C-alpha cells in the first residue's frame, strides 16, 4: 500500500495492496468496439493513479471465470468484472472475496452484485439501455423493428433487443449476421428489407454494423429509420448527416474508469460508493444535437 503521496493516507484497517495492480475481466471479445472503450477508461484511470491495470475479456463464462481464478492466484489488489452470466461467475467471485480481494462489478449483473460480495456495481444493464432505445424509436414512429444481432447467443446483445421489444410496442424481428464480414451484413439487411416492406426501423448493436446497415437501407431503397448502440467516428458523421437517428451511449468509458477509482479509494481509504445501490453510467443518447461535440471524443476512443 501507500504508493502515492497525493492519495489519502492508508488506514491501517485497509487491505494491503501487493503491487500486482488491478485486473479488469469482462465478457467482451477482444477487439469489440464497446469493450475497447471500457478498456481505454480503465487504463486511463490506471495511468492517472500510477497503478497497474490489466484488461482481459472473453465471451465464454467458463473462460471468464478462469481469468478471475488467475487474478486471484496472482493476488491482485482488486478485480473489476462484468457479469453477463452471474451464475457462472458466482464461484470464482466468491473465491476472490474469500481471498479478501475487493471486487467491483460493472455493466450487467447489478442484481447479483451485492449478494456475491462486490463492494459496488457500476454501469447500466443492457436491457435498460435497450428499453431506452425502444422508447426513442417508438417516438420516431417505428412500428416494426429489425434488431441486428452480430453474435448469436451473446447474452448482452439478446438483452438489448429484448429491452427494445419491451418499450417499442410494435414487433421486433431479429436478424443474425456475421460481424467479421461486412459485405454479408449489408446484403442480409438488404435482403430483409427487400423481402419485408413492413420493416420501418433498424437497430444495430455495434457501430460497424450500423455503417453496413446504413448502406443496406440505401441499397434497398427503404425508408427505415436507423439507430445504433455505441459510437465510432463514422457513426457520428452519419448522425450529423441524418442517416442515423441516434446512438445509444452507455458512456462505458466510465465503466472502466470509475471502478478503478473506486477500488483505489477502497484500498487506500476504505471508501465505498453508491450506498449499496448501483452507480448508473447511462443511457445517454447521441443525436444530431450533440453529435458535433462528441465527434472528437469518439475518434479518440473515449466515447
Amino acid at each position, binding site marked *: 500500500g501507500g504508493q502515492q503521496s497525493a492519495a489519502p493516507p492508508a488506514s491501517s484497517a485497509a487491505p494491503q495492496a501487493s503491487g500486482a495492480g488491478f485486473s479488469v475481466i469482462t465478457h467482451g*471479445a*477482444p*477487439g*469489440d*468496439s464497446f469493450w*475497447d*472503450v471500457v478498456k*481505454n477508461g480503465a487504463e486511463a484511470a490506471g495511468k492517472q493513479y500510477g497503478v497497474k491495470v490489466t484488461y482481459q475479456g472473453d465471451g465464454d463464462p467458463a473462460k471468464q471465470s478462469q481469468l478471475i481464478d488467475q487474478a486471484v492466484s496472482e493476488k491482485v489488489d482488486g478485480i473489476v468484472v462484468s457479469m453477463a452470466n452471474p451464475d457462472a461467475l458466482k464461484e470464482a467471485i466468491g473465491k476472490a472475496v474469500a481471498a479478501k480481494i475487493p471486487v467491483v462489478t460493472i455493466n450487467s449483473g447489478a442484481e447479483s452484485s451485492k449478494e456475491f460480495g462486490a463492494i459496488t456495481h457500476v454501469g447500466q444493464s443492457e436491457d435498460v439501455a435497450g428499453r431506452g432505445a425502444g422508447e426513442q424509436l417508438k417516438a420516431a414512429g417505428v412500428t416494426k423493428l429489425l434488431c441486428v*444481432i452480430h453474435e*448469436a447467443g451473446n447474452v448482452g446483445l439478446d438483452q438489448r433487443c429484448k429491452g427494445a421489444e419491451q418499450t417499442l410496442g410494435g414487433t421486433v*424481428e*431479429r*436478424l*443474425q449476421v*456475421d*460481424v*467479421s*464480414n*461486412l*459485405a*454479408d451484413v*449489408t*446484403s*442480409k439487411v*438488404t*435482403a*430483409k428489407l*427487400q*423481402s*419485408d416492406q413492413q420493416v420501418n426501423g433498424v437497430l444495430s448493436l455495434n*457501430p*460497424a454494423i450500423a*455503417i*453496413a446497415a446504413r*448502406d443496406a437501407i440505401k*441499397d434497398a431503397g427503404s425508408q427505415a429509420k436507423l439507430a445504433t448502440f455505441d459510437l*465510432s*467516428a*463514422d457513426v457520428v458523421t452519419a448522425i450529423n448527416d441524418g442517416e442515423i437517428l441516434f446512438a445509444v451511449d452507455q458512456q462505458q468509458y466510465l465503466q472502466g474508469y470509475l471502478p478503478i477509482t473506486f477500488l483505489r479509494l477502497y484500498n487506500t481509504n476504505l471508501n465505498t460508493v453508491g450506498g449499496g445501490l448501483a452507480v448508473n453510467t447511462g443511457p445517454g443518447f447521441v443525436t444530431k444535437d450533440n453529435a458535433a461535440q462528441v465527434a472528437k471524443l*469518439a*475518434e*479518440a*476512443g473515449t466515447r
Partner: protein
Amino acid sequence: MTVPAQAAADERVAHVGLARRLLIRPELGAVVGLVAVFVFFAAQSPVFRSPDGIANWLDPAATLGIMAVAVALLMIGGEFDLSAGVLTGTSGLILVTLATRFGFNVWLAMLVGLVVALAIGFANGLVVTRTRLPSFIVTLGTFLMLQGINLGVTKAITGTVQVSGLRRADGFESANAIFAGTIEIGGTSFRVAILWWILVTAVATWVLMRSRAGNWIFAVGGNEHAARAVGVPAARTKIALFMTTAVAAWLVGSILALRYTSVQANIGIGQEFIYIIAAVIGGCLLTGGYGSAIGAAIGAVIFGMADKGIVFLGWDADWFKFFLGGMLLLATLANRLVRRYAEEVRH
C-alpha cells in the same frame, strides 16, 4: 488377335450418354447443387429471383468467390491457408491507416498493402515448405499473429479498434470506382466485385487447365513425392500458391475497405473456413489433388444463396444456422450423388 480399326471404336468402351459424361466433371456436379438451391428459394420468394434480389446475393458471393477460387487452387495443391481471412483485414487496415493517418495516396497505400500481403504469403509458403510442418498449423500461427497485429497496431495508432475516413483521402474516387463501384444492368446496379470475381475465376481456370503451373498444382497436391521425383519444383509451386491466396486476400480486403471507407480490427476472423467450405462444396478434395476453380466459384454462390435465401424467406433468425447447415449438407449431398451415379467407382 487385335481388332483392326482400333482408333475408330474400341470394343472395351461402353456407350455412355453425354449427360453422364458431363456430370463427371467436378464443376458440373456442383452445378446440380446450385440449381437445386436456386430453385428452392426462387420458388418461394419472388424477391429472391428479382434482379434486385439477385444483385443482392451475388454481392457477398463475389467477394467470397474470389477467395474461394484462390483457396481452391491452394487446396488442390494440397495445402490450407487459415490466415487468408484475417489477411483481408490486414490489407484493408494498411490501406486505410496509410491513407488517412499518414497521408498516402490511396493507390500507393494499396500498393504497400499488396507488398505486405505478398510478403506474408511468401513467409507462409516458405515456412511450410522448409519445415514440412502441416500448413494447417503454420497458417494457424500466422492467423493468430495477424489477428494480434491487426488489433495491437490499430489500437496503438488510433486508440480505437477501427480506422475510418478513407473517403477524404487522395485517389479515393478512382480506386473506389474500380474496386467498389457499381454497374447498371437493366436498371439494377450490380457491384463491380462481381466482375473481379469472374476475372479471377477465368484466370484460375486457365492456369489450372492450360498451363504448366496448373499441371504442377495438381501434381504437388496429388502426390508431392512423386511430383518432386519427376522434377516438378514443388516448393516453388506451393509458395506461389500461398502468394496467390495472399493477393486474393489483398484484393478482397481492398474492395471492402474502399466500399465501407473504414475497417475494424477484427474483420475477416472466421472467414477462412467459409472459403474452405465454399471450395469443398464446389468439389475440391480436402486431401488435395482434385478440384476446380469454377467449382469453387459455384460453391461460393451456393453458400451465398443459402445464406441470404433464408433471410429472404423470413425464417426465424434463431434457427438460421440450423437451416444453413441443412441446406449445405443437402447441396453437397446432391452434388455427390450425381457424381457417384456418373462415375461409379473411383479409388
